[in-house]
């Protein structure tokens, strides 16, 4: 609680104390009791009355200060002292609670995003200077001690350590970092001193971009928020006009009724006419939802996207880098007449001088140093493979065409992926399967998406048909489109957009390198692991900081929960308010009920909204 809230609280307690006294002690003369009520009223509500007077001078009615003042002064006029006092008192309790809740959720969301570095230790003239991260230039060397936040993006030039990336990615396992590794600002250095060469200015660094995204998120408003602010705009004037009619017309028409009876009912109307409870609980819910998502490493760029996510019907995924790891690895070795390791050794030696991704993955799998002197007579046969003399043996490594060219009898492999056929001394000696691996997380993603009522999961890829279909089958996807050019992806997405129901949404998940047009075209574009790729972060509506597609499903879950709470609050608040209005029009509900409809509803709606921050 800040000092403003403390003052408020003291006023409330003092006023409450006086109210209780005047309830407990019945003075001989009723006037003393009434004076106590008036004093406690003024203690708790003088600022509201002052604001109301100021607004009336400006010609601004329908503002809540004005409504409360009219309602309470009216109650005093018809000698309902306790009610008048209670209305103001509880109104202030509601306001205080509202301030407290908003303040609390602001703090907890900003604590989630507590990644802004305060300073950077930079080497200048052989000395370490502590400066504002804003003042560090590209190319300068900064020093990050254990426990400090990395202030700017850069490359490690000295030292190795473990980095805590939780604030950025939601990932709790620390990441190990060595010389030449790229590091992102906002991570915390866990173990030992790192020297880093800065590669991006602070304004362009990851941490600034993320904070910018999160801060701007609540300025893109959702449909629910717009609905409620529109509702509030008409609700208050309508209720006030009804109150006026209620006070004036019945006493004129109905005989044998008192004017003060109808005024009492009209004043109850005024108490219920404040829309603030409803208006605050909705953006509060979205704010909480966006906060909960950023806690798991998902940045949602606007409340509107969080809202749309709950209606996800079709999820379209890119393959390479999204569902698969995007790294080619040796998956299987089938050796004939040699050991697996020997076969891998001959193939790696033969491919040693090539920079093709295939030969890189062969060498990676082999893992040992290659004695280049053992490799001679290297001949690259374009589009087919390589012929070389390795350790005195003639080695052929390449595709089927290579085997046919040299008339080598081989058994065709039925496996999916890139297959390297190896022949040693003109004899077929086995195959090596190289393929992209499906992410463990992809299986989880499919299951979670289906659990969250996603109707169709579709894969789009530029990759070959058999490889793509194998992945789609393995993951149990609904549809798979392969061998697509980037422009095909756009036209296909346009077609898929027409397949959903009018309310349903299409989500596209890509790793962002060539996907910017599709990211922009989809209802919701999700860029994955896109911390480095500016174009993708720019084009996407949601950015996932890790390379786990399942975070999309988790976000849908958060979105659904947020929307459930939003709907509960809208329905609950409107029902109670309208109910109390009807009851007080017939004289059944008292002003106490009206106070509940106003303050009670706002407190309950806020408590309900705060539940979102607790989503795991």
């Amino acid at each position, binding site marked *: 609680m800040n000092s403003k809230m403390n003052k408020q609280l003291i006023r409330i307690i003092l006023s409450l104390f006086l109210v209780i006294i005047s309830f407990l002690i019945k003075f001989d003369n009723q006037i003393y009791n009434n004076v106590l009520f008036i004093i406690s009223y003024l203690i708790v509500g003088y600022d509201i009355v002052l604001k109301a007077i100021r607004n009336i001078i400006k010609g601004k009615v329908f503002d809540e200060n004005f409504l409360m003042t009219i309602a309470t002064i009216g109650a005093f006029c018809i000698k309902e002292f306790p009610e008048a006092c209670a209305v103001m008192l509880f109104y202030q309790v509601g306001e205080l609670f509202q301030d407290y809740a908003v303040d609390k959720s602001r703090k907890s969301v900003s604590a989630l995003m507590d990644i802004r570095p305060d300073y950077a230790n930079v080497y200048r003239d052989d000395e370490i200077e502590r400066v504002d991260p804003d003042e560090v230039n590209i190319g300068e060397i900064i020093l990050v001690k254990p426990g400090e936040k990395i202030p700017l993006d850069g490359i490690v030039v000295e030292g190795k350590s473990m980095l805590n990336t939780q604030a950025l990615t939601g990932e709790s396992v620390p990441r190990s970092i060595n010389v030449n590794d790229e590091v992102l600002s906002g991570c915390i250095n866990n173990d030992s001193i790192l020297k880093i060469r800065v590669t991006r200015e602070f304004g362009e660094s990851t941490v600034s971009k993320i904070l910018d995204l999160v801060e701007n998120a609540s*300025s893109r408003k959702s449909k629910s928020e717009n609905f409620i602010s529109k509702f509030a705009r008409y609700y208050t004037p309508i209720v006030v006009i009804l109150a006026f009619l209620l006070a004036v017309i019945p006493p004129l028409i109905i005989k044998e009724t008192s004017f003060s009876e109808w005024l009492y009912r009209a004043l109850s109307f005024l108490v219920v006419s404040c829309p603030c409870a409803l208006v605050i609980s909705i953006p509060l819910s979205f704010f909480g939802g966006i906060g909960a998502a950023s806690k798991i490493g998902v940045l949602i760029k606007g409340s509107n996207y969080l809202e749309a996510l709950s209606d996800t019907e079709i999820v379209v995924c890119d393959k390479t880098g999204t569902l698969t790891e995007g790294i080619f690895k040796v998956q299987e070795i089938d050796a004939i007449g040699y050991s697996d390791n020997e076969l891998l050794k001959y193939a790696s030696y033969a491919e040693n001088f090539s920079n093709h991704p295939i030969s890189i993955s062969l060498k990676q799998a082999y893992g040992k140093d290659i004695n280049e002197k053992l490799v001679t007579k290297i001949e690259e046969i374009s589009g087919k493979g390589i012929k070389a003399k390795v350790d005195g043996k003639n080695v052929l490594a390449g595709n089927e065409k290579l085997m046919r060219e040299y008339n080598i009898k081989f058994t065709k492999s039925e496996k999916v992926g890139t297959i390297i056929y190896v022949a040693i001394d003109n004899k077929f000696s086995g195959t090596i399967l190289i393929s992209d691996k499906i992410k463990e997380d992809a299986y989880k993603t499919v299951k979670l998406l289906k659990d969250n009522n996603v109707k169709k999961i579709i894969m789009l890829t530029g990759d070959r048909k058999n490889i793509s279909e194998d992945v789609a089958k393995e993951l149990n996807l609904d549809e798979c489109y392969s061998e697509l050019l980037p422009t095909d992806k756009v036209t296909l997405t346009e077609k898929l957009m027409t397949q959903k129901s009018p309310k349903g949404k299409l989500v596209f998940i890509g790793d962002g390198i060539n996907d910017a047009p599709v990211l922009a075209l989809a209802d919701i574009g999700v860029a994955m692991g896109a911390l480095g790729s500016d174009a993708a972060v720019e084009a996407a509506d949601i950015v996932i900081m890790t390379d786990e597609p399942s975070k999309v499903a988790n976000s849908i879950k958060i979105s659904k929960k947020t929307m459930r709470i939003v709907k509960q609050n809208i329905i609950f608040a409107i029902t109670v308010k309208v109910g109390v209005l009807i009851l007080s029009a017939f004289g059944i509900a008292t002003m106490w009920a009206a106070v509940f409809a106003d303050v009670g509803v706002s407190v309950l709606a806020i408590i309900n909204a705060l539940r979102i921050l607790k989503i795991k």
Partner: protein
Amino acid sequence: MSKYKFKIKNLDCANCANALERALQKIDIIENISISFMTQKLTFECLEENKEQALEKIRKIIKKEEPDVTIEEV
């Protein structure tokens, strides 16, 4: 069009924020003006040469609608 961001102070109710936002939307030289009650931020877009003029108009409306509110560029 450039985007400007301001911290907004002493804005104490969500409905007032909406009302103020609606009033500010009527200014013709600015676009996409938005007030976020939760983050207490005012953002808008306008041509760079119109910035001062726009700010003057914004301040004038704020003074009329919510006299306690002040804004401060971030």
